[in-house]
């Protein structure tokens, strides 16, 4: 499953790096503690969070994550968007809360860990 397919299927809004969506997703990780994401996410994971601070971009780069899904229609700070564009990290948003979007990815797409 590629990021692009997830975007289309769940009608996610692409805020940055629309040309970086042809990336295979290896699994998902949901957490709002960035230290936890740094320790426990795996390369190629799609990361579900409500944190919008620009540090999310650095964490995604560090862990080589496929994309970040911001939940609850949270809009990132302008700094975060600038940084995500520079680092070519896809920032995606959904109106759904973390539980719903995680559940859908888990059940309907078989993205299980």
């Amino acid at each position, binding site marked *: 499953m590629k990021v692009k397919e997830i975007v289309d299927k769940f009608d996610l809004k692409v805020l940055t790096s629309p040309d970086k969506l042809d990336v295979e997703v290896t699994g998902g990780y949901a957490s*709002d*503690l*960035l*230290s*936890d*994401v*740094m320790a426990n996410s795996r390369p190629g994971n799609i990361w579900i969070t409500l*944190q919008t*601070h*620009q*540090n999310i971009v*650095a*964490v995604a780069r560090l862990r080589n994550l496929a994309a970040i899904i911001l939940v609850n229609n949270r809009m990132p*700070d302008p*700094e975060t968007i600038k940084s995500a564009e520079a680092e070519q990290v896809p920032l995606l948003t959904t109106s759904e809360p973390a539980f719903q979007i995680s559940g859908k990815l888990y059940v309907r797409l078989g993205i299980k860990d």
Partner: protein
Amino acid sequence: MRSYRADLHIHTCLSPCADLEMSPRGIVQTARSKEIDILGICDHNSAENVPAVRDAARPYQISVLAGMEVTSQEEVHVLGLFDHVDSVLKLQEIVYAHLPGENDEDAFGMQPVVNSEGEILRFNEKLLIGATTLALEKVVSLIHSHGGVAIASHIDREGFGIIGQLGFIPEGLPLDALEVSPAMSVETARNKFAPRLPLTPASDAHHLNEIGQASTAFWLADGTVAEIKKALIQEGGRKVMTGEAK
């Protein structure tokens, strides 16, 4: 100049999670018995008990700094410490305007605003335990624009500490110091975090017996935020003595 022992992070009974025994007089007398010269009164997202603690400290040789522990939208705790009550109350206006919700005493605890005798004047009804909608960068810039020092709280704690919440200290964030909780020694913190900023151990006391469990030794001319500011950048002979090579 002389050395001052400071516990820059103490809650009062106003914080819902703090013990009701954290009355102005109880705090000041305990600080006195533990030979603390400077107290930072930092309740969650409020400074309404600062004047009472200042009043209670009058008979003693203790400086009470007007402070607040602000919760940013990322749920990072940041201390703002000021010399003037007016400054922290101006910051409080902005914090209140960005702090949604109402307190639930059964769930979180009571939030009494008291006088120096510990008599309850009223109950604060805001959800002080909650997060503001202010970004971390904004919180730090507001503390500075009101003349305060900005210290990241308990950086060794996963929950509500800046490193736990955000993975690492954002580059370019103009903090003045980093607090280490009593759970970690300054030496351990220095090795673990390799900080570029001064470390200022403090107790984060929620109970009387926790006051002074960690403290910072400063070399200052006076027990004020203006002096501490100088010490944090080693200006005019002022300095942070804690963690210095013995």
